[in-house]
């Protein structure tokens, strides 16, 4: 008995080592994952530590210095109220990452609960999936606009609205992967052995949906940032004086032909952040799903 | 003496296809690895030649290289010669290749459902070859197509023309594939495991059909399979392939009665005999085909051969003509018997 145990553990270690090797190889072969992760980390660190880098108040107006082009003093120039754009873009990153992160986390949690239960109980499945179909049929931004118009503008309402928008697609993904796992022999075996439904759900099915979920979370994160910018641009997002990328773009609407940096700086921030997250998602998918190579299957 | 005479008579007729020392290499991890490694092969007009081997033996790659079908998908390097009616196909441009594909050399593939486009009708897929190569009008092509389907044994061919592949049974699909392949009356038909994906009863029908068409139309057939039973019924001669090389080559009867190579012997032993020894465990060849990057240094088969010795592992064996017309690539037959080295 002991010998067998030792043997299996040795075997397991060997398998584990090999898997680690393969992972390392795949990681190195997928630059998307590394570039995306590094890009995202840089933005995250800048957003967190901006008060240390530049203690300027993002909302401090200096009307004398309005619409200054980028210079040594104002790294990215100033806006029409003379606010330092570099500082505002960094504070904007805080807002965008906060909103995007919350939406990604909340919609993934909610979507997983819905998806896993739907995959396991037939009647529930019908009801939940019809609701998801209906929600997906409404273009996301519009649904968010409507919800925010109803509830009023605040960052929590933006998060709530976007969470409602993205949950159904998470639920669908999770359900699809859970359905595949449910048919696996080991789940059947557990059922035959009399394991409870809940135990099967959370112990066996949940771990299997984690990897598609992480991939989707990074895509939703990216999408939520774009959506937040669009909502703020329409005046249905984060309320005004707060520095959010969408607000800054909205404010530059009137002056960007004279002072293009007011548009280019927050715009570039959106693009870089979203691209990092998309790359991270692509990379994660390739990394977690060995069947896909070089983004062939999408 | 008599044997030599016979040989001369054979060679007086020009072979349809002659493959000389063919190597087909693919890039794997920045190295060129041979999937086909020095194959020689001659096909006479009207002859059915069988190629037998496990999956991964390079038999499909070899057959595809005759039409250079792999050129479109991946980087591939050819060495040696493929002579079709004395012309080296490896020297041709792909544009020239297109003129003989489906026209003078045709292929039928393993899985008829996936080999036919699911969103085009039988009509559209069949008439296309005729219009392309025979330069005939649509109406003529249609008439010819119906004739073709009739000959191939499809009941109600007019109806079949309008159908989509998924509406036909597997056997019918393969018949349509054969009709497409033979529409332009090719000189050579490459049948790449044409029966593998079919039900056993249908397999039989398709084999008979191929045999029948060979007699009627007189084209040569390169029949690729891992089914030894099919080979014994159909082929005039058989080549056994292992890891990109032909290890044994003989007339069908000779091969089945006097197999020489340990691999051939193993393959033959694996055929289940219904009546006898039902209780006994079916023999198998130990191990599996090694991957391209792990080809052994000496004889390719040495890792799975129980007769292999030090020499087999170190040096590639010569091709030995054990009896006239029966060659084998094995050290066992290198001394004693008739020595006749052809190549390495």
């Amino acid at each position, binding site marked *: 008995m002991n010998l067998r145990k030792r043997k299996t553990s040795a075997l397991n270690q060997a398998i584990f080592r090999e898997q680690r090797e393969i992972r390392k190889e795949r990681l190195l072969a997928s630059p998307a994952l590394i570039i995306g992760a590094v890009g995202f980390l840089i933005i995250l660190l800048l957003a967190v530590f901006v008060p240390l880098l530049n203690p300027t108040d993002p909302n401090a107006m200096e009307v004398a210095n309005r619409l200054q082009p980028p210079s040594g003093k104002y790294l990215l120039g100033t806006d029409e109220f003379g606010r330092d754009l570099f500082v505002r873009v960094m504070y904007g990153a805080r807002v965008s990452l906060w909103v995007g992160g919350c939406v990604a986390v909340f919609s993934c949690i909610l979507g997983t609960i819905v998806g896993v239960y739907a995959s396991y109980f037939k009647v529930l499945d019908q009801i939940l999936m019809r609701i998801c179909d209906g929600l997906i*049929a409404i273009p996301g931004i519009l649904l968010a606009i409507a919800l925010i118009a109803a509830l009023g503008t605040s960052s929590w309402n933006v998060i709530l609205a976007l969470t409602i928008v993205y949950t159904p697609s998470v639920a669908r993904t999770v359900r699809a992967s859970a359905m595949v796992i449910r048919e696996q022999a080991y789940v059947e075996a557990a059922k035959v052995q009399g394991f409870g439904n809940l135990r099967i759900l959370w112990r066996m099915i949940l771990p299997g949906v984690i990897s598609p979920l992480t991939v989707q979370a990074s895509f939703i994160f990216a999408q939520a940032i774009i959506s937040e910018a669009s909502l703020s641009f329409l005046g249905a997002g984060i309320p005004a004086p707060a520095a959010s990328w969408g607000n800054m773009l909205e404010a530059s609407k009137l002056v960007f032909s004279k002072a293009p940096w007011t548009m280019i700086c927050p715009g570039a921030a959106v693009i870089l952040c979203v691209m990092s997250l998309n790359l991270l998602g692509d990379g994660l998918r390739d990394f977690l799903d060995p069947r896909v190579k070089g983004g062939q299957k999408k | 003496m008599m044997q030599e005479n016979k040989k001369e008579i054979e060679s007086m007729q020009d072979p349809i296809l002659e493959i000389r020392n063919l190597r087909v290499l693919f890039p794997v991890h920045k190295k060129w690895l041979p999937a086909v490694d020095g194959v020689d092969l001659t096909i006479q007009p009207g002859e059915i030649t069988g190629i037998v081997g496990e999956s991964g033996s390079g038999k499909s790659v070899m057959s595809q290289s005759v039409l250079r079908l792999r050129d479109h998908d991946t980087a591939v390097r050819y060495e040696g010669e493929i002579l079709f009616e004395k012309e080296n196909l490896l020297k041709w441009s792909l544009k020239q290749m297109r003129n003989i594909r489906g026209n003078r050399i045709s292929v039928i593939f393993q899985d008829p459902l996936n080999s*036919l486009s699911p969103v085009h009708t039988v009509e559209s897929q069949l008439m296309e070859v005729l219009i392309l190569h025979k330069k005939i009008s649509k109406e003529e092509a249609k008439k010819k197509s119906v004739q073709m389907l009739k000959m191939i044994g499809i009941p109600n061919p007019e109806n079949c023309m309008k159908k*989509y592949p998924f509406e036909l049974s597997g056997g019918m699909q393969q018949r349509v594939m054969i009709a497409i392949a033979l529409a332009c009356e090719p000189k050579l038909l490459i049948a790449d495991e044409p029966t593998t994906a079919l039900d056993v009863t249908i397999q039989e029908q398709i084999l008979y059909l191929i045999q029948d068409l060979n007699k009627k139309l007189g084209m040569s057939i390169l029949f690729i399979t891992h089914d030894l039973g099919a080979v014994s019924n159909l082929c005039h001669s058989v080549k056994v392939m292992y890891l990109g090389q032909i290890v044994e080559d003989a007339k069908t009867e000779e091969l089945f009665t006097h197999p020489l190579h340990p691999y051939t012997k193993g393959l033959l032993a694996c055929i289940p005999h219904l009546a006898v020894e039902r209780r006994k465990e079916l023999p198998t060849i130990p191990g599996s085909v090694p991957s391209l990057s792990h080809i052994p240094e000496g004889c390719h088969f040495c890792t799975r051969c129980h007769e292999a010795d030090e020499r087999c592992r170190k040096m590639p064996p010569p091709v030995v003509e054990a009896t006239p017309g029966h060659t084998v690539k094995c050290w066992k037959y290198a001394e004693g018997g008739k020595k006749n080295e052809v190549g390495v």
Partner: protein
Amino acid sequence: MLSYILKRILSLIPVLFVVSCVVFLVVYIIPGGPATALLGLEATPDQIEALNTELGFNRPFFVQYADWFVNVLKGDWGTSYFLHQSVLEAIGEYFLPTLSLAVLAQIFALILSVPLGILAAYRRGTALDVTAVSVSLVGAALPGFLLSMFLMLLFGVHLQIFPVAGYAGLEEGLAEHLRYLFLPALSLGIVQAAYLTRMTRSSLLEVLYKNFIQTARAKGIKESKVVLKYALKNGAPVILTAVGQSFGSLIAGTIVTETLFNIPGLGMLTLTSINRRDVFVIQGVVLFITLLYVLVNLAVDILYGFVDPRLRPGRK
């Protein structure tokens, strides 16, 4: 084919039911009732109470929903509190520019993405493919309105080729109409194309390694025909689905972009309604565009049936 279409239409019923519930809830969930939103901060509680009663907000939930639902079916989508006209009328007035813009953007997107996606898939791994993939990666990270701003800056302000903003209706001539719509449609089209190029590329990649492609080549067919007849038709369902699904984001993008270019479309209507919290108009716009989106996808499904014979009942 007819029964296939019918089946598709029937399958929409539960979707539309859920949509109607959600859209109804949009007004129902307003804390304090719709009057709070409509009357703004200065209103007294009595005024709010009175308007809520007038709008029937004090009735039980199901009565309200049933009432609203029947009215919507009858064509009464409520009245705008600020425009003093019915919601449906307002939508009708603002719809045409949006439709024009969306259609033009979709055309741009298809012209850009399909050939590029096919070429990228066919020449997989080449510089062209890498470029196409990288460009579409950037495109996927772009909000449409941002690209609009870049294009405005480049074409409108610096090169002065196209008008920076504004709109000319069809009655002012097609050329003028298109001239004004060119920049917004192009920017929306490019963003859309980024996604569609990826989808076209990946669907073609999947198809190009199928056995029937090898069969087609073995017949001696020219490569261009192999790709256009066999690969494209087999890959078309995926591309079609992508077009249908991305129509939602296209129309959403249209709404945001319109506000930037001052195009008097549904986007403008939405923007002004957000500012006034004219909730019935917003509700109407959401319902209207969702119906449009659902119809577009129905059309895609039906087209799908034409492309892929396996979906047609009666066959087999």
